[in-house]
C-alpha cells in the first residue's frame, strides 16, 4: 500500500477485495480480481498497465457506472457497491466528472450546451447554468468558442470542452480514461497541464488511465495493473508544468 500520503479524514475512494467477473462458466472473465485500492482526496493518480488488465473496469466501478461482482466500495466513507441505478446516478451527478478517450460530446450541440448538461440534471436555473458553463469554458481556454459545434472544434478543443463539462459541477473527483488517447503529443500535454492545474488549484482528485509514460508523469502516484490486480503502486516526482 502507498501509505506515505498524509491522511486527512476518510479516504475518497476505498475498494476492498473488489472483483468484477464478466460472463459465467467457460467464458468467465475475471476483469478485476480482489483488488484493494485507497485514494485520498486531492490525489492525482495515473493507472497504467497492459491492454485487458482491468484498468477501464476499475475506472467504471470507481465512477459508479458499473457495480462490482463482489467486494466493498466506500465512496467518501459511504458503502456504494449495492446502490441501485438511480442512487448511483445521483452520486455521479453531484460528485463525479468524466473525461473519455472519445470525448463523448453531444453532436450538433454547442460547446456551451454540452457543458451545461450536468447542471441541467442538477436542476440549476438556466441563467446560472449558462454563467457557470461560460466560466468552465473560460477555465479550459475556450472563451469565444461557446457556440461552436463539436464538429467545428479540433480534437484538443473537444477534449477541453469535455473537461469543462466534467468540472462545471464542481465534482470531488474527475475520472479520465485515456483522455489523451486520441490526441497528438502537443495537445496531450496541453490537456495534462489543464488537469494538473485543476488538481493543484481546485483540489479536484484526479484518477487517470494512460498508456504513455510522459502522460503518467504528470501524476503524483502511479498504479500498475496486470491481470485484474494491482502489480505496483508508487509515488513519483511530479512533472513540473512546462
Amino acid at each position: 500500500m502507498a501509505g506515505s500520503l498524509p491522511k486527512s479524514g476518510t479516504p475518497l475512494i476505498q475498494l476492498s477485495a473488489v472483483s468484477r467477473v464478466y460472463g459465467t462458466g467457460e467464458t468467465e472473465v475475471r476483469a478485476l480480481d480482489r483488488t484493494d485500492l485507497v485514494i485520498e482526496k486531492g490525489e492525482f493518480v495515473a493507472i497504467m498497465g497492459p491492454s485487458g488488465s482491468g484498468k477501464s473496469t476499475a475506472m467504471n466501478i470507481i465512477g459508479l457506472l458499473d457495480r462490482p461482482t463482489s467486494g466493498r466500495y466506500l465512496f467518501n466513507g459511504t458503502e456504494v457497491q449495492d446502490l441501485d441505478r438511480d442512487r448511483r446516478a445521483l452520486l455521479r451527478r453531484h460528485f463525479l466528472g468524466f473525461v473519455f478517450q472519445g470525448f463523448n460530446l453531444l453532436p450538433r450541440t454547442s460547446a456551451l450546451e454540452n457543458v451545461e448538461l450536468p447542471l441541467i440534471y442538477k436542476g440549476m436555473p438556466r441563467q446560472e447554468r449558462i454563467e457557470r458553463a461560460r466560466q468552465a469554458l473560460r477555465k479550459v481556454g475556450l472563451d469565444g468558442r461557446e457556440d461552436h459545434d463539436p464538429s467545428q472544434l479540433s480534437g484538443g478543443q473537444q477534449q477541453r470542452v469535455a473537461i469543462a463539462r466534467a468540472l462545471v459541477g464542481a465534482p470531488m473527483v474527475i475520472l479520465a480514461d485515456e483522455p489523451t488517447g486520441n490526441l497528438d503529443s502537443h495537445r496531450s500535454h496541453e490537456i495534462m497541464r489543464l488537469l494538473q492545474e485543476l488538481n493543484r488549484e481546485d483540489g479536484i482528485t484526479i484518477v487517470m488511465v494512460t498508456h504513455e509514460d510522459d502522460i503518467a508523469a504528470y501524476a503524483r502516484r502511479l498504479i500498475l495493473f496486470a491481470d485484474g490486480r494491482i502489480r505496483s503502486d508508487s509515488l513519483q516526482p511530479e512533472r513540473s508544468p512546462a
Partner: protein
Amino acid sequence: MIWETIRLALLALRRNKLRSALTMLGIVIGVAAVIAMVTVGQGSSRSVAASVESLGTNVLSIRPGGRGFGPGPGSSQPARPFTLRDADALADLAVVQQVSPTVSSTQTVVAGSENLSASVTGATSGYLDVNGWTILRGRGFNSAEDRSGASVCIIGMTIQQTLFGTSDPIGQSLRVGKVSCEVIGLLQAKGAGTFGQDQDEIVLMPIRTVQRRMLGSDNVSSISVALAPEVSSQRGAREIEALLRDRRRISGNEANDFNISDRAQIAEVLSGINSVLTGMLSSVAAVSLLVGGIGIMNIMLVSVTERTREIGIRLAVGAEASQVLTQFLVEAVVLSLVGGIIGVIFGLALAFGASLFMAIPFAPQVYVVVLAFAFSALIGVIFGFFPARKAARLDPIDALRHE
C-alpha cells in the same frame, strides 16, 4: 424540471428537422383526415336537415305503381295513373289540408336569344305551399288559371338568371316547348336539394296546360298532400290509402297499385345513410391516425438506437432513468401534438374547401378538434413509451461504448 425537459425535447427535435417533419407527417395526415371527414359529414347532414325543413312538414307523396323501386311483383302491367279527379277526392278528406297534383316534362325554354333545357312542372295553386316555395315577385296561379290551361308560368331563380339576367321577368313572354306563356311570378331561391340538384331550375305552368298542350294526356304523375295540422303521417296515409283503394276498386287482399311515401321519412333515411358514411370514412381516417402513431414509434426507436451514445452521456453525467424516459416521451408527445395542431389546421382548411365545393354548410366541431388534440397526445404517449423505456433501461457503459 418538466419545462426543462420540454425545452430539451424541442432542442433535440430541432436538431433533426427533416426527420421530425417526416415523423409528424403521419399524424398530420391522420388528424387532417379525421377533422375533414367529420366536418364535411356534419355539414352535409345539416344540409340534409335544411332541405327536409324546406319540404315542409307532414307532406305525403303518392305515386301510381307497386311498392319499392324498379320492376317487382305487380309491375308487369303498367300502373293505372291518377287523374285530377283523384286529387279532388283527396282534397275533400278531412285529414288533408291541401293537394298538389303534378305532371312534368322536360322542355326547351326560350326567351329572346337565350335558351335552356329545363324540367317543366304542371301544377296547381297548392304546389307552392305543399313544397315550401315562396313568391319573390309577382304572384302564384289563381283558381281560374288552375283549371283552365292558361298560358302563364312561374319561374325559379336559375331560369331567371339564365334568361333574363337582372331585368324584371314579370309580364315578359317565355316560350316553353311549343307553348308561349307570360311570366307571372318569380320564386324565392332554395339552393341545392337533398341530392345536390339545383332546385331553382324550375318552370311551373298550370297542370292543364302541360297535360293538354305538351303531354296530350289527362294523367297525373304524382300527388303531394299536405296533411292538416295535428294529423300524424301514419293516420293521414291510412285514410288516403283507404280512399284510393276504394276509388281504384282494390279488393280486400290485393296489394296496392300505388304507393304513399312520407318525404320526411325519406330525408331521415338519407341523413341516416349520410351519418353511416361519415362514420365509416372517419374510422378509415382514424386508422390512418393509428398508422401515424406507429410511424412515430418506429422513428423514436430508430432515434433511440442512433442516440444510444447520447443517452450514455446523459446517464454518465447523472441523469436518472425517469429523466431519460421523460425526455423521450416528451419528444414523442411534442411531435404528435405539433403534428396534431398542423393536422387540425390542415383538416379544417380542407373541410372548408370541400364545403364550398359541395355547397354545404361549413360546420367545424369544437369537440372533434379537442378530441383530435387529446388523441394525438395520447398517441404520442402510447407509441413513445416503448422507445422511451428502451432508452431509459440502457446500461450506461454499453451506451457510452456504442458506436
